[in-house]
């Protein structure tokens, strides 16, 4: 034990170690000064003083290091320290250049140790390297100044004495600062007094700018809450206060939370932008704004202005009868404060105006459809049933409720799963078809039963089953072997007559909406750029698909087909198909919304 104690004493007696301790003391109590910051005219600059003393301690450290004789065991390193430093710098630069490779390397590395080594190396890039270089440059600049100082001191006795006095003065100042820091730490950490909020505003913002955009010190001058007409300087810590210097300007309303201090020295706990700023004016301009009124009510409750808080809560309820949860929280605060009469009055008011939010039933599919044979026939011959089944499958696969994912369905979206049954989809479509059949178009029904329609349907079905690559090869060859103008014109006429691409985009959006509702989210509203981009790429796909599917038809055969869709009978079928598909989607969306909202209300 004695040997260890002797060793420790020997280490402590070393100049560099003592300088390092002084540096750490200055650094530590600088952060304490920042943590328990004092308002005032000059007191806030305690942090700057601490930083200055820490810098001076760093100087002392470098000077002691250069004057000290390193242990002989370190001779191999110290004798070639300059080369070591140069090589280390070169290595760091190399690591920095290779950082992107190191970032990827963990993906292929075996074992956690190797992976972590690569991760560490990849992080040595950029900012870290800059930090290391900054420290090294600072150290070397200190060393340069120390060398010059020693050279001067060797030639002038007066300078030598001055340097020695300065050395002692710095040590003394750091020790005094330590005492100040300890006092601040006691004043803040042992303080059990409640914090008091003061509302004031910014008079001026200032900062000490450093090179390369670093802003190490920023303070705000606030209108004093203690002395009318005076100002108070307070240091600003952007991360802690949530106020970046660029966003703070003169006139900004601020809330300062002050505590009285264990040693009765008031200190600033926090600074923040005043959330109640302009609330009265805002509510005068926008009297139906719910968020600021609720904020005002919270402030009134905190200020124990119960009557005003209750009055504003009544206004909120009158404007937003569904805001029951908020009203309940106000009632609870009033009860807690012993304002039972106010609480009961507010509760009565809430009961009088309040109601649970209604569940939106958008475009309900209606009751059971009066489905007869012809409805089934039209659905089957048009291919509506297959399309609806495909849509239900698409929705389920997006929600992870089909195939292997089905066993997790209950955990993911139970309410959605129960409402996405295929029967319900077909029922909604059948309603539309049944209504349309009340004024059926005889020509359309004849077409559905015609061999020509059956042939076209089989062409489509065959193409869907063919190898995808064959279609891709066909499309890839189009620029070199473009189709005839006549064929392209037919493709355009078919697109116009059937509005195929538009329907595809609308259905894709409808599916997206159902999925979003099932996930309990509100579907994002789309802008026209989105729709136009979607329809453009869909039109390209539809055009190439049409060219491919009907590639073996003659122009005359295709013309016959296109001509039918342009007739009133063809248009009747297009309308029925579109309305049926979209009605089925809307009904599915309404069912999913209703079930999701019910589940949420119940929970």
């Amino acid at each position: 034990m004695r040997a260890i104690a002797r060793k420790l004493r020997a280490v402590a007696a070393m100049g560099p170690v003592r300088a390092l301790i002084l540096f750490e003391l200055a650094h530590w109590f600088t952060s304490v000064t920042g943590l328990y910051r004092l308002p005032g005219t000059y007191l806030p600059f305690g942090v700057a003083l601490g930083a200055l003393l820490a810098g001076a301690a760093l100087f002392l450290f470098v000077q002691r290091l250069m004057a000290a004789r390193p242990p002989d065991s370190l001779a191999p390193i110290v004798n070639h320290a300059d080369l070591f430093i140069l090589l280390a710098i070169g290595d760091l630069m190399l690591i920095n250049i290779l950082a992107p490779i190191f970032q990827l390397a963990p993906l292929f590395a075996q074992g956690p140790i190797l992976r972590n080594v690569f991760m560490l190396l990849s992080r040595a890039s950029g900012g870290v390297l800059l930090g290391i270089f900054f420290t090294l440059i600072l150290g070397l600049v200190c060393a340069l100044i120390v060398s010059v100082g020693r050279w001067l001191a060797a030639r002038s006795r007066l300078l030598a004495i001055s340097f020695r006095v300065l050395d002692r003065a710095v040590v003394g100042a750091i020790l005094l600062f330590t005492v100040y820091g300890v006092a601040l730490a006691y004043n803040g950490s042992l303080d059990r007094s409640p914090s008091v909020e003061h509302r004031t505003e910014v008079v001026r913002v200032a900062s000490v700018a450093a090179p390369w955009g670093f802003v190490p010190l920023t303070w705000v001058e606030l209108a004093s809450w203690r002395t009318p007409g005076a100002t108070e300087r307070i240091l600003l810590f952007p991360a802690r206060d949530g106020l970046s210097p660029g966003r703070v300007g003169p006139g900004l309303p601020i809330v300062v939370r002050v505590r009285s201090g264990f040693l009765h020295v008031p200190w600033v706990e926090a600074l923040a932008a005043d959330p109640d700023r302009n609330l009265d004016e805002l509510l005068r301009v926008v009297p139906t704004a719910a968020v600021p009124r609720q904020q005002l009510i919270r402030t009134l409750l905190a200020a124990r202005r119960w009557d005003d808080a209750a009055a504003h809560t009544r206004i909120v309820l009158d404007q937003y009868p569904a805001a029951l949860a908020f009203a309940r929280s106000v009632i609870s605060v009033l009860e807690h404060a012993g304002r039972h009469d106010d609480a009961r009055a507010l509760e009565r008011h809430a009961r009088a105006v309040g109601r649970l939010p209604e569940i939106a039933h958008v475009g309900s599919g209606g009751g059971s459809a009066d489905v007869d044979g012809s409805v089934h026939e039209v659905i089957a011959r048009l291919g509506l049933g297959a399309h609806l089944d495909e849509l239900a499958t698409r929705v389920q696969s997006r929600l992870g409720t089909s195939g292997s994912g089905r066993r997790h369905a209950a955990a993911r979206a139970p309410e959605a799963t129960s409402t996405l049954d295929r029967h319900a989809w077909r029922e909604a479509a059948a309603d539309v078809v049944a209504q349309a059949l009340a004024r059926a178009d005889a020509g359309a029904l004849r077409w559905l039963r015609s061999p020509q329609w059956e042939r076209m349907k089989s062409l489509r079905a065959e193409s869907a089953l063919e190898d995808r690559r064959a279609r891709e090869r066909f499309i890839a060859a189009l620029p070199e072997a473009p189709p005839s103008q006549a064929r392209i014109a037919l493709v355009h006429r078919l697109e116009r007559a059937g509005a195929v691409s538009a329907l595809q985009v609308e259905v894709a959006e409808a599916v997206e909406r159902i999925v979003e509702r099932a996930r309990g989210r509100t579907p994002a509203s789309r802008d026209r750029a989105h729709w136009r981009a979607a329809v453009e790429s869909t039109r390209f796909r539809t055009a190439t698909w049409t060219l491919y599917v009907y590639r073996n038809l003659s122009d005359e055969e295709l013309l016959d087909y296109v001509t039918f869709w342009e007739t009133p009978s063809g248009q009747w079928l297009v309308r029925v198909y579109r309305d049926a598909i979209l009605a089925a989607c809307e009904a599915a969306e309404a069912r999913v919304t209703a079930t999701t909202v019910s589940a949420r209300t119940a929970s």
Partner: protein
Amino acid sequence: MPSTPAPARRVSGHAAGPGPSSAAASPPAAPTRRLALRPVLWLAVVLMILWGASYRRLAPMASELFPMSRPGLRAVALYLIGDYVGAARMYRLAAQDEPGEYTYDMSGGLALRAGNLPLAERRARTTLALVPGAAEPTLTLAEIALVRGRPDEAERHADAVRERHPDHVDALYLSAVAHAYRGDDGVAITAMNRALRQGRADRETMLFHVMEVTGHLARRPAEQQPASLLAHLYRYLRIYDPANGTLAIAHARRAIAAGDHPADAYLTLGVVYDKIGEHAESLQAVTRAVTADPRHAEAYRWIAVEAWRRGDPLLRYRMARAAFEAAPADPFYLRTLDESVLRALGDPYTMTTLLRRAVEVDPRNAEAHERLAAVARMQGDVAAAVAHAHTARVLWHTLLTESAEASP
């Protein structure tokens, strides 16, 4: 602090050896040197400073500006010395890749990037034959025209797309570039501002077009440079390299002094200040923009953004509303209203009033109907929600089908 070392305990100089007593007791050992400043260390300092300076210059630049190829390195070098025209050409060369198959390149954009202009043109024209009026292949034709040095043709193509898709970001940038070459500064600035509110272009090649035209305009003698337009072009390049922000500010200041589109120049000044965190200056600049042009919707929107940053909901509301009132038919500002009125203030009543105004101005405004449906649903007004949702869908359907009907 440097102090004179005590000679009894410390020996100065790095050649100092052990004391005389130890020398008598043991054979002389190789002395341990003290730490001292040697020439190698100065080399290290110079290396570190150079590295630090390079890091500060290069680190904020976007990865798009560092293609990993020989022309890529030349492009970076040209860019760093300020030769934007040469750099743009080199970047274009460095971006060349396989054109892929037509199946995956309906617009011809990949072929264009690959530098195969005939193939790109063939693909674009094939797609245009299949989908007449399609935006993407038309824009490829515009880009091809720009590369071939035919800005008037590029302008025609880009403006054709803009007519059908007023907010197509690539069409707006291409149109701005083409008009800039032709000296239509006002049109180019309007297109740039409309594009910049959506951020960067979708097409990677757009950066090179903007860089090239910026280089061309900046080569002119100072008095012939279109300062305001250059400020806007540098503002776009700032997205990729913050160093261009300084140039944008300098040109905007020159434009303001010369009275060259001062409202737009103030707006650019405000936006660049915002990006570098100088929010007080930013607010001041955009406020001046609306003083210079009280109908500048985008400047009002930027005041709303600055108000949001300062946590001032009242100013934010007023400015979002002013932006909407300056351009009630522009659906873009409905989003600003949505954020400022519906989300920040939680006020569906005011939102409904404003959306109804948008529908009054443009009954075909599907976005407004869609938002009205959402607001009505929030208020529990199911009937209104259904009605507006239906109207929106009908309008979207009309929008979707009208492009097909427009084909020959």
